[in-house]
C-alpha cells in the first residue's frame, strides 16, 4: 500500500517552496519533490529576485537569505553593432530598505536556502526525485503521484504543480495544450567573477550595499524579440540574454554566439574586463503571457509559477515574485478546500479567484496584448532602435556642419526609414500594449 500525505508539491523552485512554506506553517502535511540534487541545482534566472511576495512570508529575509546586492541603479540601453544609447535611474529611495523589493540573487544558492526555511517550518523536501506521472482512481481523478524511485507511489488529497516552464505534468493532466516555440524565450547566461571593489568602480556604486541592473535591447538579440542583461552580484556579475525561440530558430541564431558577441560589445567589454568565468547556464522562460496560460486548476490539482506561465515579460521581467505569490495563493486555496474536505475543481476554483484579485493576473492581463504585438511587429527593434541610436549620435556630432543643417539631415534620414503612418500606427499599438490596455 502506497504512503499517503495531505499535499504533494512538485518542484522546489520559488513557486513550490512558497506554497509548501505556507502550508507547513498552517500545519498541513506537505511533501515537495525536487528532481535536482538540491533545490536550485536545475534553476537559472537573470536574476533580480522581486521580494514583495517573499517579504510576506519571511519579513526579515534580508538578514538571513543569500541575496547578493539590492538593485539601486538601473539602466535601459538600446545597442546597435557598436553603439549604445540609454537612460539611467538613480532613485535615492531605492538605496534604502526595502530597496523597492529588488535584489540580485544566484538561484542555486537562494533556492536551497528558501527550501531550508520551508523544511524548518515543517515541510518535507525530497530532492533527487522526479515525479513522472499521476495516480488516478477509477473515475480518472488524481489521487497521487508516481515518482521515479523504488516504491515511489505516493497518495495525496491534492497535487500542486510547480514544476516550472517545461511542465510535462500539466500536459499529462490535460491542463495545457502543446508547447509552441512562440510562447517561449531561451535564456543563456554567464556568471563572471570580479572583486567587489572592481564592481563598485565599474558600475559607479558606492558600496557592496548598492547594485546595478542594466537591460539591453536591439543588436544584443540580433534585433529579434528578447533582451540582454548585466546584473551585479557581490563578487560576480551575471551577464546574459533571452531570445524568442521562434525568431532565433528561423534566423538560425546560436544563443551562445549571441552571448559571445554581446560580451564583446564595445559598451560591455570594459565592464567585464579581466573577469573570471565561473559558470555558463541556460534555461527557458514562458513568454505566452495572459493568453499562454494553461488551466490552472482541476479536480485535486493546481498549477502555479512558470508551469502556469505566470511571467510578466514586458519590460519588468517579473517571474520570481509571481511564482511565489501564486504558490502562496495555491496554498490558501488548498487550505480552504481542506477545511471543506472537498478538493474537487469546484472547491479549488477559489484559487482562480484569488489569482484574479492579485498582481499575478492583474499584471498579466494588463500586458495581454504585448506578446502578440511584439511577435507581429518584428520591425520594431530593427527600425526604431538602430535609427534612434543613429539620430542621437548625429545630434551630438561636432564638425563643420551647422546645427541647423545637421538637424535637417537627421529629419531626412528618419523619414527615409519610417513613414509617418507607420510611426503613428506603431506608436498607437505600443501605447496600447505597454501603457494603456
Amino acid at each position: 500500500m502506497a504512503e499517503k500525505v495531505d499535499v504533494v508539491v512538485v518542484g522546489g523552485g520559488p513557486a513550490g517552496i512558497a506554497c509548501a512554506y505556507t502550508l507547513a506553517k498552517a500545519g498541513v502535511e506537505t511533501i515537495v519533490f525536487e528532481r535536482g540534487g538540491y533545490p536550485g541545482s536545475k534553476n537559472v534566472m537573470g536574476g533580480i529576485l522581486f521580494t514583495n511576495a517573499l517579504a510576506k512570508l519571511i519579513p526579515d529575509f534580508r538578514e538571513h537569505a543569500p541575496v547578493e546586492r539590492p538593485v539601486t541603479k538601473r539602466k535601459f540601453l538600446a545597442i546597435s553593432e557598436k553603439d549604445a544609447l540609454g537612460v539611467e535611474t538613480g532613485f535615492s529611495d531605492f538605496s534604502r530598505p526595502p530597496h523597492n523589493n529588488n535584489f540580485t540573487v544566484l538561484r542555486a544558492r537562494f533556492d536551497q536556502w528558501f527550501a531550508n526555511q520551508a523544511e524548518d517550518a515543517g515541510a518535507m523536501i525530497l530532492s533527487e526525485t522526479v515525479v513522472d506521472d499521476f495516480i488516478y482512481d477509477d473515475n480518472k481523478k488524481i489521487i497521487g503521484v508516481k515518482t521515479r524511485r523504488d516504491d515511489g507511489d505516493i497518495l495525496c488529497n491534492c497535487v500542486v504543480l510547480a514544476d516550472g516552464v517545461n511542465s510535462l505534468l500539466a500536459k499529462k493532466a490535460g491542463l495545457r495544450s502543446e508547447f509552441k516555440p512562440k510562447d517561449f524565450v531561451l535564456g543563456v547566461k554567464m556568471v563572471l567573477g570580479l572583486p567587489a571593489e572592481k564592481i563598485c568602480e565599474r558600475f559607479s556604486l558606492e558600496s557592496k550595499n548598492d547594485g546595478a541592473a542594466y537591460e539591453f535591447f536591439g543588436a544584443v538579440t540580433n534585433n529579434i524579440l528578447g533582451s540582454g542583461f548585466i546584473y551585479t552580484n557581490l563578487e560576480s556579475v551575471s551577464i546574459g540574454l533571452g531570445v524568442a525561440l521562434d525568431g532565433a530558430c528561423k534566423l538560425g541564431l546560436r544563443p551562445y554566439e549571441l552571448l559571445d558577441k554581446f560580451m564583446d560589445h564595445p559598451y560591455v567589454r570594459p565592464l567585464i574586463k579581466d573577469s573570471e568565468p565561473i559558470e555558463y547556464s541556460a534555461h527557458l522562460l514562458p513568454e505566452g503571457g495572459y493568453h499562454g496560460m494553461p488551466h490552472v486548476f482541476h479536480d485535486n490539482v493546481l498549477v502555479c509559477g512558470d508551469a502556469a506561465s505566470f511571467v510578466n515579460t514586458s519590460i519588468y521581467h517579473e517571474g520570481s515574485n509571481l511564482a511565489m505569490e501564486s504558490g502562496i495563493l495555491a496554498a490558501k486555496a488548498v487550505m480552504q478546500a481542506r477545511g471543506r474536505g472537498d478538493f474537487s475543481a469546484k472547491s479549488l476554483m477559489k484559487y482562480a479567484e484569488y489569482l484574479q484579485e492579485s498582481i499575478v493576473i492583474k499584471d498579466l492581463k494588463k500586458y495581454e496584448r504585448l506578446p502578440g504585438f511584439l511577435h507581429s511587429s518584428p520591425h520594431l527593434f530593427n527600425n526604431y532602435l538602430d535609427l534612434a541610436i543613429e539620430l542621437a549620435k548625429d545630434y551630438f556630432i561636432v564638425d563643420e556642419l551647422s546645427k541647423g543643417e545637421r538637424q535637417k539631415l537627421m529629419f531626412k534620414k528618419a523619414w527615409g526609414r519610417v513613414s509617418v503612418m507607420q510611426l503613428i500606427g506603431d506608436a498607437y499599438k505600443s501605447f496600447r500594449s505597454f501603457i494603456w490596455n
Partner: protein
Amino acid sequence: MKKLSIEDKIGLVKFKVDTGKPHIKIKPEICKTCPEKYCVTICPVENYKLDEQGNVIFAFEGCYECGTCRIVCTKCGLEWDYPLGGYGVCFREG
C-alpha cells in the same frame, strides 16, 4: 575577457551522468526527413551536430535539460524526458 569555446563553457559546469541511459533520444529516420533541423542551431550546449552526410548526431551528456529541443522539434523526431533524480546538470550559481 578571453572568448571561451562552447566546450570550455560547458566545462565550467558539474554533471552527474547516468551512463548509458540517455534521457533524450532522437529518431534518426525522422530526423533525416526534417527540413528545418532547428535543434542543431538552437541547443545552448550544441548537443546536436550534423555529420558530413548531413545526418543529425546527438549526444546527451552535457545537456542542460532546458527543454528547448523538445519545443522546437517540428517533426516529433525525439523522445524527451528528465534524467533520473539527482542526475544530469548541477548548477552551482544558477
